[in-house]
């Protein structure tokens, strides 16, 4: 029995190969994801932690810095070999465009020393009047070793220095500096941190406790280097874990796509062997034996495929690491047994599960099927599946219909999203019935126009709608994800843009810092006011705060603004007059369950909070201030030192703009722009994130494309006889090739259209649930849709290349003489 099956399997190497390809791909993507995240974790751990610090003394946030005298006192502790102070201060690298690079400049400056915290990547240690720059920021600023660069210091001073070297930083918890001065005196002579090394044999814990005794606990923190290193390592692990979790989401999507491909391939493999299986049954094999044989075969195939997949996956992972690693950084390839085991589990289990349904069908093959001429199953009824699909989709529609309002609570939002997912599942279940319902009429229409090749191809694409649906399922999953996120993304960017357009007048000149959310210098507001021609000036004071309402606290954002300023939030309900209280984003109000008239407390910092009444709701959204309050109600500390953006208008907007631009011409820390500039800035980083998403979901589409190749190739093998007849009655090779191509394009386009529809719909639901916008107010990502459609046609053509060639090469005589 086993031998018969094995022989049979070996006799159809092509089919086996295609199944293996499907399993290999699915497993490879899972293993690759694991390898990438493991290696990323190991890389950050390997570089990030140093062991040359015995004890570290740091100042608390906002506390006065350590003095040279403090350092000397620390150096005098018994057992201390050396004490070195780290000067920290404001330092902004000015790029080629005259503006600061995008790293927070507040604590970006430090003094160079020979400790292990700097890893020199290029050049040499900086001398006097020289600096070393952190590698990524040097790249952003376009500076190389030997270049001169301007560095902005605190109080607007700036220095010109030669870049002596480039470094990467190994932090023990402090923020990574960007500029290391050869002469730390540039930044001052007090220290944010003093690091002690211990004499051989000295006890660091004793040193630490002695050091603790020297200072006030509230303003100085003392830790051993070992403790800090352990914390840093834990943070690296944590970040690796969360990045792995992110990546695994994508791997799960690839695996899902792979599952569809494996299941479909296996179903085809069994279908094609109906006759052999029936023959086995006819000569006395029991159902159980047939079922077990198919399952054993699946397990074996799954094992071999997983092994190949693990190898390919490690290769893919390595490739991904090499491609993505910044130049010059070394990567450590780490392969953990967990990743490989999960790959195997996925491969073998998915194959066995996919095979189980096929095995049952195989066992149910009646022995007479061996005698039946066409040797295939009668088409199974789609009724159960379609009814299940309809019910699921209908439940989804109901869930969404019940949650159409914009001010949804968190639970309602989850119900809404659940509805979207249910519709998606419903569509997957309905896919075969839909294929029948859509492709047949479309096929009839196209057939009338196209030649015989198109006609034959289209007919073939609908001959087994279950198979067509299964083939397209992975395409639908991949494309729908891409389109859903594209819809969400374009909805968010267009909402952001329209929200900014509604609050900021087109004529306003906008003054901000080049670094996101960094406060402007205290002089900026006054300087703008004094520019001739400027009539109205107001400012945003954007801050991350906490809001307490009805006893529950959640993080939010706020801005203290001048009443009657340039910025006017778009009011949906109540008033926009901040003199009377807080104006809150509608969505945010719904999230915290607050209405107009409710009292809320904004917690600015542990010591400062303001309690106010909600007087109006505005249309703002995440990424823009959610709470607007009167600047007069916040303490001075959050007023002048907290200005993030200044808006100015005047009778002649162009003159205002030119005047302000001139006033800040030599200020690398100030950017003068307008409303469109603000919009571009707000949407840019978001679009980058989206592009990354597309790339990751692309893996699912690649697998799906292989799935199409697989189906076509197996179909071609299955139809050898038919193709033989077609060739015998006079179809040329070109026609055969075209027919297969037409079939492939039809299958891919169907998957593409379905995926796009589902994706855009799901994207609309996501933006409704997440942003509290109306369900219908989504914006359609036309660019992505056009690209997806064109891409599907290309995938269709490419996927058909090999199967079509194979089909065209069919040996007519062999095809018609062997049944």
């Amino acid at each position, binding site marked *: 029995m086993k031998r018969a099956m094995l022989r049979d399997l070996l006799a159809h190497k092509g089919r086996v190969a295609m199944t293996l390809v499907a399993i290999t791909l699915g497993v490879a993507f899972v293993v690759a994801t694991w390898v990438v995240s493991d290696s990323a974790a190991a890389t950050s751990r390997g570089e990030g932690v140093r062991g040359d610090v015995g004890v570290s003394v740091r100042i608390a946030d906002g506390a006065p810095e350590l003095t040279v005298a403090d350092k000397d006192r620390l150096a005098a502790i018994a057992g201390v070999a050396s004490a070195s102070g780290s000067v920290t201060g404001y330092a902004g690298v000015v790029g080629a465009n005259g503006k600061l690079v995008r790293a927070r400049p507040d604590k970006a400056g430090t003094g160079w020393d020979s400790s292990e915290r700097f890893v020199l990547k290029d050049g040499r240690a900086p001398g006097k009047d020289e600096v070393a720059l952190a590698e990524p920021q040097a790249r952003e600023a376009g500076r190389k070793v030997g270049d001169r660069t301007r560095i902005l210091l605190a109080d607007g001073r700036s220095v010109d220095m030669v870049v002596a070297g480039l470094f990467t930083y190994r932090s023990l918890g402090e923020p990574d500096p960007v500029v290391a001065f050869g002469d730390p005196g540039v930044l001052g002579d007090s220290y944010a941190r003093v690091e002690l090394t211990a004499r051989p044999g000295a006890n660091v814990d004793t040193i630490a406790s002695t050091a603790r005794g020297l200072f006030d606990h509230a303003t100085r923190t003392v830790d051993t280097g070992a403790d800090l290193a352990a914390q840093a390592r834990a943070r690296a692990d944590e970040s690796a874990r969360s990045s792995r979790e992110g990546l695994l989401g994508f791997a799960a999507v690839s695996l899902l796509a792979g599952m569809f491909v494996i299941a479909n391939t296996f179903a085809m493999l069994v279908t094609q062997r109906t006759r052999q299986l029936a023959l086995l049954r006819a000569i006395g094999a029991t159902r159980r034996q047939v079922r077990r044989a198919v399952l054993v075969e699946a397990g074996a195939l799954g094992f071999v495929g997983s092994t190949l997949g693990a190898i390919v996956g490690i290769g893919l992972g390595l490739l991904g690491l090499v491609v993505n690693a910044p130049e010059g950084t070394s990567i450590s390839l780490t392969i953990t047994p967990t990743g490989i085991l999960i790959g195997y589990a996925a491969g073998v289990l998915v194959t066995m599960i996919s095979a189980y349904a096929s095995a049952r069908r195989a066992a149910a093959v009646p022995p007479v099927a061996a005698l039946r001429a066409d040797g295939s199953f009668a088409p199974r009824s789609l009724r159960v599946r379609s009814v299940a699909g309809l019910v699921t989709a209908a439940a989804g529609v109901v869930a969404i219909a019940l949650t159409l309002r914009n001010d949804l609570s968190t639970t309602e939002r989850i119900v809404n999203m659940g509805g979207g997912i249910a519709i998606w599942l419903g569509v997957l279940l309905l896919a075969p019935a839909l294929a029948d319902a859509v492709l047949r009429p479309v096929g009839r229409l196209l057939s009338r126009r196209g030649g*015989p090749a198109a*006609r034959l191809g289209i007919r073939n694409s609908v001959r087994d709608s279950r198979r067509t649906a299964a083939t397209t399922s992975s395409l639908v999953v991949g494309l729908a994800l891409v389109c859903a996120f594209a819809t969400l993304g374009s909805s968010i960017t267009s909402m952001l843009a329209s929200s900014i357009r509604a609050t900021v007048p087109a004529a306003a000149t906008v003054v901000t810092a080049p670094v996101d959310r960094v406060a402007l210098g205290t002089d900026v507001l006054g300087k703008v006011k004094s520019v001739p021609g400027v009539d109205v000036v107001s400012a945003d004071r954007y801050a991350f705060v906490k809001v307490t309402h009805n006893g529950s606290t959640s993080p939010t954002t706020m801005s203290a603004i001048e009443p009657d300023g340039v910025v006017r939030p778009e009011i949906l309900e109540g008033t926009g007059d901040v003199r009377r209280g807080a104006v809150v984003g509608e969505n945010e109000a719904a999230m915290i369950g607050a209405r107009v008239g409710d009292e809320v407390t904004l917690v600015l910092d542990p010591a400062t909070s303001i309690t106010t009444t909600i007087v109006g709701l505005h249309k703002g959204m995440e990424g823009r201030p959610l709470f607007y309050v009167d600047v007069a109600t916040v303490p001075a500390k959050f007023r002048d030192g907290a200005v993030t953006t200044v808006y100015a208008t005047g009778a002649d907007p162009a003159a205002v703009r030119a005047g302000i631009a001139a006033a800040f011409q030599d200020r690398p820390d100030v950017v003068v722009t307008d409303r469109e500039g603000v919009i571009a800035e707000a949407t840019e980083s978001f679009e980058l994130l989206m592009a990354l998403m597309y790339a990751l979901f692309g893996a699912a589409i690649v697998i799906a494309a292989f799935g199409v190749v697989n189906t076509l190739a197996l179909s071609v093998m299955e139809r050898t006889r038919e193709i033989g*007849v077609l060739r015998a*009655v006079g179809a040329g090779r070109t026609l055969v090739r075209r027919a297969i191509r037409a079939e492939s394009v039809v299958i891919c386009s169907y998957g593409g259209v379905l995926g796009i529809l589902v994706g855009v719909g799901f994207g609309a639901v996501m933006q409704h649930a997440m942003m509290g916008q109306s369900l219908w107010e989504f914006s359609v990502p036309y660019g992505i849709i056009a690209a997806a459609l064109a891409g599907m046609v290309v995938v269709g053509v490419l996927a058909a290349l090999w199967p079509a060639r194979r089909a065209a090469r069919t040996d007519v005589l062999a095809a018609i003489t062997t049944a």
Partner: protein
Amino acid sequence: MCRAAGSGTVYGVRTSTNSPAVHGRDLSKVYGSGSSGDVRVVALDDVTVTFPRERFTAIMGPSGSGKSTLLHCLAGLDQPTSGQVFIGDTETSSLSDAQLTALRRDRVGFVFQAFNLLPTLTAWENIVLPLDLAGRRPDQAFADAVIDGVGLRHRLGHKPNQLSGGQQQRVACARALITKPEVVFADEPTGALDSKSSADVLGFLRRSVDHLGQTVVMVTHEPSAAAYADQVLFLADGRVVGELAAPTAERVLDRMKDLETAVAR
């Protein structure tokens, strides 16, 4: 390919005057090289055959005698090891694959033992497939004659899996005839049919010769099927070993018995 006007046949079937429909000269087909363990099989051994126009010829012979091989070589599906095949005036060994394809499409019809039809096409679409492939429209009068001849008018919209084996074979016959080919080759067209269905198919082939002026060459094992033909050609061991005009089932059976005893000896 130049074809002169027909020789007075019904519905103007195109024929080349004078030349026979099919002529095979000194045909040999050898499988295997005969070297190192590779068994050399002579399937056809210097066969010369001529099939005149508007005649129904049956080819008979024991299993393995080379009947199918002969048919494949004549039809341009296979190349003989040596010898020449003429379909009308056209010598086929010099044709390219594309030319052979066009020849099969336009000038030759086929009926195989089974699996003749494309499962995705309806009966009508299967019948007109060769015309469709050539980008031609069917000659409606002729198509009607063919369809009525096979008696399938009420079944034209059905897919092959909705037709009985006999009906499928009749559709295949109709497809073979629709292009008004110079010759229709049929390899055991009734091999998988019961006697009633066989009679339908054979009757149709007979009528296509009588009324539509077609030429049919059919391989068969059944003396009763051979009895529908105008003449029977007997093959044994890859050689033509006899001929019988105006066959009846009994006379064919007798000859077959003779042949078998001759081969056994």
